[in-house]
């Protein structure tokens, strides 16, 4: 595979004091590639959003400390000055947020909000930024973009607002787009349209897309590579076919078992995962999934498994699977 455009190494994000804090992201590492969509999957509270915000360097202001490295364009984003980071945010790394209702400034016309992003990064006149904003709105499929650019966010439906968010995120043709649950707040029919739009834009721009979601249907439709996150860690990494057809981590398997399959006539009941995710203020020793894992053995409760490759398409953080891959 080509060189990654963004490489995250040993990312650790901690909220609170050193003595009494929560480590919400614990040693996460992954790479993003041009033109490829990487899905980051996991349940609520698993650290997906914290990972994205850490990469964007947006968590420090809420009192978090971030360690590790985020390599992009020959530099470590985590070591950059805030001023230098500001020139990367929005220009090179675009972000689409979950809730389009509250992610747009209610007091600004939507054209101005998009123009604002352009003006923050490029030396263009306000008029030119505005006409580019209108072009962008057209590109994301907003009807009558020239007129609608003068409207305020409350005059738009949820799906249209998300199109506006996407237009703002791609305003400066970023190389990386991070979409944090971009369709969670939308109707199913609208979801499909927004996902298709994201997919098309990403293809056109050749950007890397990090898609954060808890919806495995979205993953199957959109992703090239998948990262499965549990309790602040990546427990499995694979390409999308491998993940759906040969999941190795018991958590991934359990996650897939929770999904309805229309073609499945057996009417077997859905299988929820028993138990609760661990309390991250005091994570269990050993594998974090062990307390809920049907296959856990004594070693799982003592040894902390690392994410290791089990084939050239798959890596898993599970002692049992690693042993099986090694000895067959």
């Amino acid at each position, binding site marked *: 595979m080509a060189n990654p455009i963004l490489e995250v190494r040993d990312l650790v994000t901690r909220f609170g004091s050193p003595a009494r804090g929560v480590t919400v992201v614990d040693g996460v590492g992954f790479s993003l590639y041009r033109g490829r969509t990487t899905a980051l999957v996991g349940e609520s509270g698993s650290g997906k959003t914290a990972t994205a*915000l850490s990469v*964007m360097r*947006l968590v420090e*202001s809420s009192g978090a400390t971030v360690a590790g490295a985020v390599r992009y364009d020959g530099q470590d984003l985590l070591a950059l000055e805030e001023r230098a980071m*500001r*020139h*990367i*945010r*929005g*220009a090179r790394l*675009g*972000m689409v*947020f979950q*809730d389009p209702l*509250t*992610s*747009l*400034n*209610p*007091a*600004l*016309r939507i*054209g*101005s909000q998009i*123009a*604002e*992003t352009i003006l*923050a*990064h490029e030396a263009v006149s*306000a*008029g*030119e*930024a*505005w*006409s580019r904003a*209108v072009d962008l709105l057209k590109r994301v499929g907003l009807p009558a973009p*020239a*007129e609608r*650019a*003068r*409207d*305020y966010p*409350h005059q738009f439906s949820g799906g249209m607002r998300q199109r506006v*968010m996407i237009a*703002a*995120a791609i*305003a400066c043709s970023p190389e990386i787009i991070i979409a944090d649950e971009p369709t969670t707040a939308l109707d199913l029919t609208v979801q499909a349209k927004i996902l298709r739009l994201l997919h098309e834009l990403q293809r056109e721009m050749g950007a890397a897309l990090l898609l954060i979601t808890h919806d495995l249907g979205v993953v199957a439709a959109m992703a090239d590579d998948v990262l499965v996150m549990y309790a602040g860690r990546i427990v499995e990494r694979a390409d999308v076919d491998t993940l759906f057809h040969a999941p190795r981590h018991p958590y991934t398997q359990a996650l897939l078992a929770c999904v309805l399959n229309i073609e499945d006539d057996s009417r077997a009941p859905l299988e929820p995962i028993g138990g609760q995710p661990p309390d991250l203020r005091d994570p269990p020793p050993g594998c974090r999934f062990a307390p809920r894992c049907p296959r856990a053995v004594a070693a799982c409760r003592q040894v902390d498994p690392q994410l290791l490759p089990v084939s050239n398409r798959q890596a898993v953080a599970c002692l049992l699977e690693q042993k099986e891959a090694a000895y067959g």
Partner: protein
Amino acid sequence: MTASERAAEPSAATGAPSFAQRYWRLSAFMRDRAAVVAALFLLVVAAAAILAPLIGLYDPNDADNAMRLARPGAAGHILGADQQGRDMLARLIWGGRVSLLIGVAPTLLASALGLILGMLAGAIRGFVDQLIMRVLDVVFAFPLVLLAIAISGVLTPGIRTEIISITIVLVPYVARLVYTTTLGVIAMPFIEAARAAGASQATLLARYVLPNVLSPVIVYATTLVGLIIVVGSGLSFLGLGVQPPTADWGAMIADGRVVLRRAAHVTVEPGLLILTVSLAFNFLGDGLRDALDPRAARR
């Protein structure tokens, strides 16, 4: 939006709305009848006050013994005269110069200062926040009028002193409102989205926080004007503001109380004027809020 409204909007050349068009929508304001009437009334009052020397009034300080306590409607004195025979209409209009200035100037100054301090404290947590808000708490802890009296007492009496002292007293009220509103706005996801788009702290404050904080401040400031006219009159009554015989609505009420039973109009006229001007400022504030807040404009 109707077609005619849209036509009234920005230039076709670039399509970009100007600064004024982004924040201010006249059409929304014009729809609010009460606000328009209030604005017209205030314009008339202000114009009369400004043009006082030119509109052929009596000298407001000229005592005509023959006309003492003349009733409203008396020959030559439409609104009557006070106990020294001074023309009420002339005194009300000349007094408006002082009272409007005392009501509006400190409110504007305090709103500007309060906006700056409150937004800084709300946006830059930690030391700056603590310093600004604790100092303001100290000012806040004093009773409003008492502190204004104390400050006026230290400086030389006069209109300027009165404006300065009332401004100082008002700043914490505005700053607290701005501070809490700013905290709420900063917690909104659109602030994080703006930061993710590369907005600088200055841009965030000017384009994202300020427009969302401005409308409550405007509404609050307009309610303050009425209060401040009364506080200002209190100061002049105590001899710490405008010096007699200069007219000011509050001072006129104070003068009139001596003859309240015999000639109520000396008190009632300035009282009614303070009441209507205060009300007008309140209506104006509501109208401005609607014009500034895109969501409220659709009612």
